[in-house]
């Protein structure tokens, strides 16, 4: 159960190797006394070090389970199984995703479809299964890592951007479907984050760090917000960008 300050006791991370998720979980454990952490990852047997690290900062019950966004049958069964154990999960974080390379995608449409399946379809099945578990439990939050890239597709990464646009719309609708269930959905829209996903890339303006994203997630959970932008002012930037005439948007988005 969450306490009066919004601190979380147990968390399930899907995409448990994500850098943003790793920093978020560490903060939850260290400052918020989260004691139970379940990491859904593609290679659970390679998680010993990551588990030890989370235990070191104070969690008492840390485990890794197999999760592949591209295998919906298996991951839905896994999520149902976890909720079926009868121990509550306060927060589920959907942190998996692939950025990929736009040029490669254009020459390899199958690879592009796979990225879209990971980012969008994988989140649809995992998100619906998690929402079902949380709803039956009568409380909890689902955190969805969306992106500003979904706000308006840009030439340089529209495969990724469109998958995030689909994910974002899905998360909004899912949140609406959960009104009155005691469960809420927190949509997180970061800009450029310095993580292994963006390693070696030139940072976009207003770039940020996993640390800042983690704080925004924890604060958003405590205040039961629906959407958070990281950094916050991106919200205003994009409310402008959305309405730019197309030729102008093409120029601006190519520069950034």
């Amino acid at each position, binding site marked *: *159960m969450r306490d*009066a*300050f919004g*601190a979380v006791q147990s968390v399930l991370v899907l995409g448990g190797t994500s850098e943003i998720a790793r920093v978020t979980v560490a903060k939850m454990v260290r400052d918020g006394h989260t004691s139970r952490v379940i990491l859904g990852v593609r290679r659970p047997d390679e998680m010993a070090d990551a588990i030890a690290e989370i235990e070191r900062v104070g969690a008492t019950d840390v485990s890794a389970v197999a999760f592949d966004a591209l295998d919906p049958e298996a991951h839905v069964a896994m999520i149902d199984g976890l909720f079926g154990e009868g121990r*509550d999960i306060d927060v589920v974080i959907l942190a998996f995703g692939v950025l990929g390379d736009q040029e490669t995608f254009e020459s390899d449409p199958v690879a592009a479809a796979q990225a879209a399946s990971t980012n969008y379809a994988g989140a649809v099945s995992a998100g619906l299964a998690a929402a079902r578990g949380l709803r*039956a439990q009568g*409380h909890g939050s689902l955190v969805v890592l969306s992106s500003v890239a979904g706000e308006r597709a840009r030439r340089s990464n529209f495969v990724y951007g469109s998958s995030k646009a689909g994910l974002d719309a899905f998360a909004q609708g899912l949140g609406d479907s959960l009104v009155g269930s*005691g469960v809420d959905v927190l949509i997180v829209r970061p800009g450029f984050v310095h993580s292994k996903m963006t390693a070696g890339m030139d940072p976009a303006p207003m770039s940020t760090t996993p640390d800042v994203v983690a704080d925004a997630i924890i604060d958003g959970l405590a*205040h039961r917000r629906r959407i958070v932008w990281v950094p916050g002012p991106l919200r205003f930037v994009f409310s402008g960008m959305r309405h730019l005439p197309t030729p102008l948007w093409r120029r601006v988005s190519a520069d950034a």
Partner: protein
Amino acid sequence: MTGPTITGWGRTPVSTGRLTQPTSVEQVAEALAGASSRGVIARGLGRSYGDPAQNAGGTVLDMTAMQGITAFDPESGVVTALAGTSLGDLMRWLIPEGWFVPVTPGTRHVTVGGAIANDIHGKNHHSAGSWGRHVTAMTLVTPANGIVTVAPDSDPDLFWATIGGIGLTGIIVDATFRMHRISTSTILADTDKTPDAQSVMDLMTTGDADYEYSVAWIDLSSTGSKLGRSVLDRGRFAEVDELDGDARHDPLAYDARELLKVPITAPRGLLNPLTVRAFNEAWFRKAPKRHHRRNLTIPAYFHPLDMLGNWNRGYGPAGLLQWQIIVPFGAEETMHRVISELAATQVASVVNVLKRFGPANPGFLSFPREGWTLSVDLAADVTRAGPVLDRLDRWVIEAGGRHYLAKDSRMRPETFAAGYPRLDEFRAVRDRVDPEHVLRNDLARRLEMV
């Protein structure tokens, strides 16, 4: 599932459950028999601050429709009341007959069931103990044994597990308890202002035995030379010949009214360190240095907060919480450290109370025991209070103290377990009457009791 959002008086934490209002023992039994894996819990008037009277994803039985007195002996003052009866109604019905509730909390809007399940205490703990001491029998519906009547000598383990058992041993249907004889409804109150915490504790130690009721309001927003200054209020019920001429005609008159309601949720930040300090300053100044033998009514003396309906909304959208702890006698040093830390960090709000408790009863999870109890109000949006309270929790536990479940909405499972060494005995009784743990609430989940 979809259902109403349920919270405690602090309006946090929040969960959703199926809320039903049984009107008979049969319906209570049916609710237990038909429970889902998320279980069932009883709810009284929801005056606990945190999460004991809610059950995420499960069933919550609103017991307030099962109310009224089923037996009353005007000679002995022994009454049997349905569990949903409020203490306010008992007062309305029985004060004119010369009987007052044996124990009253700071609000009369609590039920008999809630009074038992939290083993509530009042300003008379040093002279009368907590609610459980006055109960002679109760009827419970338990998952394993159905309807049972328990008394201290018939099944003492189940009896004392239920006193303070936060609803986890069965649904209480009715209870029989002794009321307290009074000849007037007037309190003769003595007020003494003291400059610091040590002097108020000294006054209580030397003088509480002369009073039925005693409690101190303590300023937790001033530091330096004003640190821990207090206003001690003590009193007893007056005899008829101590009343003014007019009042003697109707010595048991009782009129409890709500003067106004807080109509809307206050904006964020209404209570900030500045306004809190100003309030405390005004309160302290208003109190006379020493004012003895004041005549006060029952509502004015016991339930001043009830004059403001749903005042909990005054804390803004984030809600509020309370932190109430006890440290045993001999751990005064810890109490002083706690008080100075609260003042230094400015996290406390306006309603802060210090009291000296008398001996404990055998309730396995009953909160009161001999020592000093401090109850502190906080606004939940002051999230920096979290780490401060975590630190104080450690001091309290190290001193052999513990936390009151009726007020808690944030302690850690290990803090709870450390404060209640008889938790395993409680669990053993609970496992006997509820082996499948049908009875559950959010508090039990949070504190890992189920």
